[in-house]
């Protein structure tokens, strides 16, 4: 009986989610949205492709199942069975900044705050300049977490480093400790619409920002729970960002999906500041065979935007 139930649930949900949420995987311990569905007991009749009539529990028909809110302790443990990873392909970046604006928008960041920074890099006088978008590296041995006195920033099982703004005391030690300078501080009361500002703070969405606390890129675990990509990944028109799960050994930018290990091997992926021993979870593909010359990113308006925002 039990068996039957599960399989039915599986195939139905799979069908219903397909095309809406991009599908869900049944080959893993974690299935976005699915585990939380509670059958309502109310059956609905449906027509199959062969013209047969089948019955389905109404609860499975909701296009996006309502996810129950996650508790703080669950947020601190993370999504079981996952090891999230990001790959940033420098050969495709031309400083469009869509990732940044989408991220700022989704997380209600204030002017002057950017979780994604697109650095104009040039290692030495005669080396090639390139654009380098940088997020939080979600280091496996995160120096920021080491120094936090109150567990306000923490490392999760799925590899993500998050911030609990309800606990942070604003000492800013983590900002000094992060070698990637990725953390931003709310120096004043963050401006946000009322319905955002009055929400309960969630570590996974990092919303709403709280005065006197730190924030940074969070890898959008709330989106992953829904089976969706982080905002920057889906926003980039050039497919620079790839996101995925090391346990599944694949990363995707929405349009293309690669086997993570192959991608890193073929394109000689590397991580930033390997010598510091922070073990980042963000990998970079070197800026070779570029899609755009560096100069295309130098459009004055982008530069201005970068400096102003």
């Amino acid at each position, binding site marked *: 009986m039990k068996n039957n139930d599960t399989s039915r649930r599986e195939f139905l949900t799979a069908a219903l989610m397909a095309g809406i949420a991009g599908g869900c995987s049944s080959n893993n311990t974690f299935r976005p949205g699915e585990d939380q569905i509670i059958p309502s007991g109310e059956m609905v009749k449906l027509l199959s492709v062969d013209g047969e009539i089948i019955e389905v529990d109404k609860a499975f028909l909701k296009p996006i199942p309502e996810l129950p809110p996650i508790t703080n302790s669950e947020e601190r443990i993370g999504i079981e069975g996952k090891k999230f990873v990001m790959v940033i392909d420098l050969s495709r970046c031309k400083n469009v900044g869509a990732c940044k604006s989408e991220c700022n928008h989704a997380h209600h960041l204030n002017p002057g705050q950017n979780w994604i920074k697109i650095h104009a890099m040039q290692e030495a006088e005669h080396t090639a300049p390139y654009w380098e978008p940088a997020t939080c590296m979600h280091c496996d041995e995160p120096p920021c977490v080491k120094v936090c006195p109150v567990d306000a920033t923490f490392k999760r099982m799925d590899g993500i480093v998050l911030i609990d703004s309800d606990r942070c005391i604003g000492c800013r*030690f983590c900002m000094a400790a992060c070698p990637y300078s990725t953390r931003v501080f709310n120096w004043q009361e963050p401006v946000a619409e009322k319905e955002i500002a009055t929400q309960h703070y969630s570590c996974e969405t990092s919303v709403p920002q709280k005065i006197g606390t730190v924030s940074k890129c969070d890898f959008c675990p709330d989106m992953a729970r829904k089976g969706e990509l982080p905002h920057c990944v889906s926003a980039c028109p050039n497919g620079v960002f790839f996101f995925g799960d090391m346990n599944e050994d694949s990363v995707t930018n929405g349009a293309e999906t690669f086997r993570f290990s192959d991608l890193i091997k073929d394109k000689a992926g590397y991580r930033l500041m390997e010598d510091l021993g922070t073990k980042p979870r963000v990998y970079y593909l070197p800026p070779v065979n570029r899609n755009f010359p560096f100069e295309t990113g130098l459009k004055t308006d982008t530069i201005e935007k970068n*400096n102003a925002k």
Partner: protein
Amino acid sequence: MENSTSITSEIITNDLLPQKFGKLGMIWTGVLIAFCLVGAFAYYLQLKNCLSVTAMRDYVSWGIYISNFVFFVAISLVGSLITAVFRLANVKWSTPLTRIAEIIAVSAILFASLIIIVDMGRPERLFNLFLYGRLKSPIMWDVIVIGTYLFLSLLLLYFPLLPDLKILMGSRKGSTKKYNKLYHFLGSFWKGGRLQNMLNKRAVNVLCVTIIPVAFCIHTVTSWLFATTYRPGWDSTNFGAYFISGAFLVGAGGVLIAMYIFRKAYNLEKYITEKHFDKMGRIVVLLALLYLYFNVNEYLVPAFKMKKSEDAHLTQLFAGDYAPIFWFAILAGMIIPILILIFKKGRKPLPALIAGILVVVGAWFKRYLIVTPTLLHPFLPMTDVPENYKHYFPSWQEWAIAMGSLAGALLIITFFARVFPIIPIQETINEQHETTAK
């Protein structure tokens, strides 16, 4: 003491009892209170608008609050130096200076903890440190060790005070009358019996032994707040020793100043003699040389290699925007005081005072240099931030709070000297007896 034979216990007591503020004392106290009030008002503004009233931003996320904190912690080390080290080494001449050093230590460490709370974005969440404290964070170590040091310093102030309290209570002088209740509360039980004296002495000895390692810890841990990060200029294995030597220097400089002022204000020429300036002067020279040595280590070695990350930072210090402050801190904080104090004439009270002031001011700027320029040289370029995030100059609120805290520390010392004898009476008398007996 030079003319020791002629001094009787009564005269000593009379000379050393706390005195009412004179006119100058009133003005001094008034000015300090004014500074504190301005600082308090600035802090009120900061509480209202959070840290946005400061000039700190995402890159320079620590500013003069933290430099001030380091300065306070540094100067507080002097308590252990003058009192504990000298006592254990059986250095007799330092007796009149012990209480000065101890009260400097207590007030400095008190304000160190206050200024660190001022620096917090969410001071009302201080209790989180006790609810969720992570023993792995150097901040936690600092909290523990500062609390311990404060407690030990208070004890070190208190034990030697006990005999004096009895003298104070017995005194008929009007200037101490109104504090009798306080004296009673603190030391009504002190009879001065042999057993009491013995217990007291033992306690002080135990304290002296304990406070030295704790004092080393407090400043080493403070240096680790920086040295445990990767930043150029902070990423150094030398930092603990470097900080401690600097701390001893600034503390000794502070004592020079305090000696001069108390001597003038309370007419203590008989007790704080030129011999004391001479000896303290020598010690400052020694400590300044030591600190200079660590400075050479700290700057020369990385400058020899000029790693890319250090390059920008060091060039800024040696020849860039921060060069004036840097060379001022080196010259005023070490070299000039050495040049003054190395000569016998330079160890007279007035030049010694000047040297002391140079040391302390130089040390304050040194702390500023340790914190700020480093933060302006992150590993990745400063990108996607408003232009004003790329510089740092403290706002008036920061100055007001920092100066207010310095004034507050001085105020505590001033009030303490008003209520308690700044030179231990009983110990001076005892020593007097010993010398006469010889």
